[in-house]
């Protein structure tokens, strides 16, 4: 139906987008896996990070890739504080309360952005924004390639932290058995906040990779929320591998969907996947929880 060159190009583009999606989903998975919170504010926090990257470039001239450590650190601190100060107090022992609290945060962030930055869509111009690289018959934009590589590197870093460091072990302990971890002397509140911070730090990295090839406005967050959740449920709640694989899958589906159905209708493919998975196979591909 479409010539193989266009198809190939679409799939490749989907994969590059998918890598960034995976990074976003990894943060969400970490937060869910450890705190058992469905972080509704994930999209809004990404939007926040995107604006941070934007302003660092526009006001201070810092290139997004160079701003990476700064944005990641800032998002980590923001996440840590947010969990410790707000979300932790909202629990009252009921999941619904936390859900509502994160919804509230999302609403506040999104509309504060609307208030302060207006609804205009903004993007940045970098020296390499428009350069492309030829891979076979496809022309891939350089920023997207960098995003792909960068997202994979950060994901690998995350896997390393979770698997090889003391912090990672503590996090996994709390995720598996909170009370036992407490008895072992692990400061659970601190671990919760660290996990949330790392989850948002992933968003910081994702924002640095995303902005050069994308844009930001106050509403982008909500666009990403459902995509991120689709990936997480598709991959299996709490599964890192699932988030990675799911990210690539969704990226490709979105790209192909856009190709065949047009930009907006193509989005429906993602929601259809979400609804389908949640209804018929809630454990996703790799998930343990139903």
């Amino acid at each position, binding site marked *: 139906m479409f010539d193989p060159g266009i198809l190939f190009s679409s799939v490749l583009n989907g994969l590059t987008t998918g890598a960034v999606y995976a990074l976003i989903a990894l943060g969400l998975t970490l937060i869910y896996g450890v705190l*058992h919170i*469905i972080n*509704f504010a994930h999209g809004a926090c990404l939007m926040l990070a995107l604006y941070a990257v934007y302003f660092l470039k526009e006001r201070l001239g810092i290139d997004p890739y160079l701003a990476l450590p700064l944005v990641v650190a800032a998002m980590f601190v923001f996440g840590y504080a947010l969990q410790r100060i*707000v979300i*932790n*107090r*909202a*629990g*009252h*022992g*009921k*999941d*619904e*309360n936390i*859900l*509502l*609290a994160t*919804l*509230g*945060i*999302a*609403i*506040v*962030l*999104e*509309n*504060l*952005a*609307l*208030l302060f930055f*207006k*609804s205009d869509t903004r993007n940045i111009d970098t020296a390499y924004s428009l350069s492309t690289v030829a891979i076979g018959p496809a022309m891939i934009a350089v920023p997207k390639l960098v995003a792909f590589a960068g997202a994979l590197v950060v994901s690998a870093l995350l896997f390393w932290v979770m698997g090889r460091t003391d912090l990672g072990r503590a996090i996994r302990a709390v995720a598996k058995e*909170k009370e036992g971890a407490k008895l072992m002397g692990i400061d*659970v509140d601190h671990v*919760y906040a660290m996990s949330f911070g790392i989850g948002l730090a992933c968003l910081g990295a994702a924002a640095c990779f995303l902005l050069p090839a994308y844009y930001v406005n*106050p509403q982008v967050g*909500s666009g990403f929320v*459902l995509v991120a*959740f689709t990936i997480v449920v598709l991959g299996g709640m709490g599964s890192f591998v699932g988030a990675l694989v799911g990210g690539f899958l969704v990226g490709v589906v979105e790209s192909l969907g856009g190709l065949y159905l*047009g930009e*907006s*209708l193509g*989005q*429906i493919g993602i*929601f*259809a996947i*979400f*609804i389908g998975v*949640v*209804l*018929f196979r*809630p454990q996703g591909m790799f998930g343990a929880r139903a």
Partner: protein
Amino acid sequence: MSGARLSAQGARQLAGIALFALAVACLPLVTTSGAALNFVMMALYATLLAQAWNILGGFGGQFSFGHALFFGTGAYIQAIAQLQGGFNAWLALPMAVGGSAAVGLFVGALSFRYGLKGSYFALVTLAFAEVFRIVALSVSFTGGGVGLMVPLRESVANMQFATRAGYLWLVLAFVVAALLVTWWLRNSRYGAYLQAVRDNEDAARAVGVNPFRIKLAAIGLSGAFMGAAGAFYVQVFQYIDPAIAYGSVTSVEALVAAIVGGMGTLWGPVLGAVVLHVLADLTRNLFGELPGINMVIYGVVLVLIVIFLPRGIGGIGLSVRELWAGKGRRHD
């Protein structure tokens, strides 16, 4: 209504509803200020949204984050029935209500059949709302992104009133209907079953309650009232588009007002809607027409309520007592 109990408390509640209806209905007779009537009308409209959400969320315990789904469907049916079907507005109304109830039953049947609860259910409702929004954007008979305009043809026969009073009475009728349904939920076997399912589904099943049917009826009712609100919106503003119909603003308004006022109560939604509406108006007077400021306030209020007053303003007595007894925080 068989099964409804007329106890002293129940009778008191009914009297309260009657008083409320009478008092508000008389408002246009004591003031002709367009601004005042408009304020009350919009407050009632917000109340209707909150009441609709309260049926499924407060009484049923199923939190929907995409309640605009039913609102938008009702609105579009109201508009399309008139524009393309040539139907009279009053005939379009039951179609709008019925249509949104049907969508509610559809989403409910899917979700509850597969045992969706909590966050998953919230997300699925949001996903459906988004799907409908995208479809509305892309399809021609909804007017696409441009939306639909219902032409001005002022007459009672067309459900378009010359003064705010007419619209006020219209939305008041819906609000009173919702109050009566909520009263029925508080004083009937069905309502007892719905709350039982909310509080502990397994325990309810063990004594003969069919959770699927109970929840399905609730989402249908809830959807119906949202549809009425949507139809009302179209009649007042004579315009609808995908963003207004299925966007998150309406979903959030309904949810926050119901929670702030106190879920699962008779007057909670009224209280919450009025408080938020007053807050929004105050903000507008203080800061002018700032885009998004309303929603910021709603979001902040939501977070504050969840942290400090999880039972809402209406449940303030209970929540303070719980806090005092130390039943505060608990992870997970």
